[in-house]
């Protein structure tokens, strides 16, 4: 057995002896010196690498300077690309995000131009416009007859407000709150701001009626007690009979589209509820907790007071909105009641 680095010739060693002896000796010699062989090779490679720095020959120098120039160019190109991309991002990112803005609140008004005269409707539009302009809100005005094709129960006017709201939301995708106010209502105190008066979380939390029956006076299903106000997306009030759908606020989003579409379903319209869309909403709120859990019921006087109401619903001076709901019956006259209120309305104080 020898301990030097075995070379190729070792394999062809012509040692005499039986085959088993030859095989054994070759195998064991490999086993013994192979790790040693690797170690010595590695050591020589490392030593060469270390000494190369000192023994720089002329071609080595040229190669090194070429490498240096190349690396400088690479760094320069990389820096230029980075600067260019940063400039592009700064310039164009702003343009992309400013696209989805819009007024934060949109007033939605549907006009029944079949039954009422032009000057009456013009006054109502003026009332809304004065309010919207004062607070920089949007105003969305359509004729109710535009939606005649999609309503199945065309006799009841109450159904038309639902596709109207849906249309308003589709046309104003950047806005957050949509306030539907009936045509026969008048904003008496335009100095009140929707956010601070109703929708701000703290204010809404103080207004929400918890644990009240959904259908007064004593329905089994009552409003939730512990749902926080920041989750509420549907703000509405009740009068002594049930939901008062002449004035409600919806927050734009998945929930609003779901409620409006489900509320407007063909089968609800064909069921011929007693009070059309009011009863339909009461049904939805009692049978489907996904609807009720995000509904906030607030006192009626906040945005839907009755001038001829009783108790809590009676309009008083300084209230936000006076509603003429139910004025299109033979005993009453919408135009006359409107004129009386129109003269007494508050104006915007700058």
């Amino acid at each position, binding site marked *: 057995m020898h301990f030097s680095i075995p070379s190729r010739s070792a394999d062809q060693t012509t040692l005499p002896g039986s*085959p*088993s002896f030859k*095989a054994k000796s*070759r*195998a064991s010699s*490999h086993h013994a010196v192979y790790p040693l062989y690797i170690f010595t090779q590695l050591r020589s490679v490392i030593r060469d690498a270390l000494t190369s720095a000192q023994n720089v020959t002329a071609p080595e120098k040229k190669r090194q300077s070429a490498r240096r120039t190349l690396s400088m160019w690479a760094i320069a190109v990389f820096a230029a690309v980075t600067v260019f991309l940063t400039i592009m991002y700064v310039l164009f990112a702003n343009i992309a995000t400013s696209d989805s803005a819009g007024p934060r609140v949109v007033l939605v008004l549907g006009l029944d131009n079949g039954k009422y005269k032009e000057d009456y409707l013009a006054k109502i539009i003026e009332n809304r416009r004065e309010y919207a302009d004062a607070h920089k809100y949007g105003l969305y005005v359509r004729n109710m007859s535009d939606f005649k094709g*999609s309503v199945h129960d065309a006799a009841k006017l109450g159904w038309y407000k639902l*596709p109207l709201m*849906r*249309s308003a939301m*589709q046309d104003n995708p950047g806005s957050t709150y949509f306030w539907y106010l009936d045509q026969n209502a008048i904003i008496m105190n335009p100095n009140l701001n929707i956010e601070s008066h109703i929708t701000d979380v703290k204010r809404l939390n103080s207004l929400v009626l918890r644990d009240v029956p959904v259908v007064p006076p004593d329905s089994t299903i009552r409003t939730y007690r512990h749902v926080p106000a920041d989750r509420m997306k549907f703000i509405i009030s009740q009068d002594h009979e049930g939901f008062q759908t002449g004035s409600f606020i919806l927050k734009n989003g*998945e*929930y609003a*589209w*779901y409620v409006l*579409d*489900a509320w*407007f*379903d*063909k*089968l*609800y319209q*064909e*069921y011929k509820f007693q009070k059309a869309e009011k009863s339909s909403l009461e*049904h939805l709120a009692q*049978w*489907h*907790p*996904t*609807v009720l859990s995000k509904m906030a019921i607030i006192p009626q006087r906040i945005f839907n007071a009755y001038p001829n109401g009783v108790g809590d619903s009676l309009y008083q001076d300084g209230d936000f909105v006076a509603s003429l709901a139910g004025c299109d019956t033979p005993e009453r006259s919408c135009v006359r009641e409107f004129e009386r209120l129109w003269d007494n309305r508050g104006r915007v104080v700058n």
Partner: protein
Amino acid sequence: MKDKDDYLYSPASRTSRVLSRLRRLPTRLRQLMLRRRILSLILFVVLCCTIVANSGVRLLPRMPWASSKFVIILAVNQGGGVMEWKGPTEWAVERTSIANKRAYADRHGYDLAIQDMSIKKRYAHEWRESWEKVDVIRQTMKQYPKAEWFWWLDLHTYIMEPSISLEKQVFNRLENNTYRNLEDYNPLKLPVEIPFVDNTHPINLIVPQDCGGFNLGSFLIRRSEWTDFLLDIWWDPVFYEQRHMQWEHKEQDALEHMYSNQAWLRSGTAFIPQRLINAFPEGACSEWRGDKRIFYNQDERDFVVNMAGCEWGRDCFGEMEHFRKISASLQKKSWWWPFK
């Protein structure tokens, strides 16, 4: 001296020459491997892969604490033997179906929720009768809070190609695999356009259409707020009272009604070509025989077969066995499979 050893090892005889070569073989093999190290390593890796692949054993172990993004909901015990007797063929069909889904779920690391659909009513028109699918989905979503997609499978289904994962079959190219409107394929003649539909809405429900409308035998539903709304509004007493006489397929018809009328639902629903997750056997949709969109195609190796309606007039057990045998023969691998 001519004793046995000398005779065997002396170089003269042919036996001894063969024997000596044989005795040198392991040593020569070892030397060859050492000399051609890289090649032998490659061959060893290939050999291991072949063995592992052919045996169906998972290469990487699944971590026991990881819960899957996908849950398969398998509806078993339909009826629970209340209205009809469950004989040995019904039990056999159930066993085969469950074993098939369990093997599939284990192979791909999905969770399997086996839900009991026995009838719990005593009178007709009892509360939410036949809308149990909706309640079961809601219950399963509560049981698997981390999962995102839930794949509902009826009992009479068979996964024919267990090597294909859901990601590969449906989700990797979701936009290409699904279609969002009824322009091309509208077997029920539902309204093609309704106002206020948003086509950029994320997909929350993937439903196949068969020859008679939506088919809820094999569909996918995603956990989201939209799904909470759907599962809540799916059963409504006013809808039920007016339509339960006409709605033979119960929640399927209710969904078709809502799809025709409510834009928010249309925005979140996508359709998938039937043969991707819900191919039919020849017996179902028999008036549409030959339609390439509906029936199971063995040459194209369709993924799942749904033997819909086999309990009315057809032989569920026979069909299940038929498809089980086809699947087994298709899965048999030849030795050159890893190199294909």
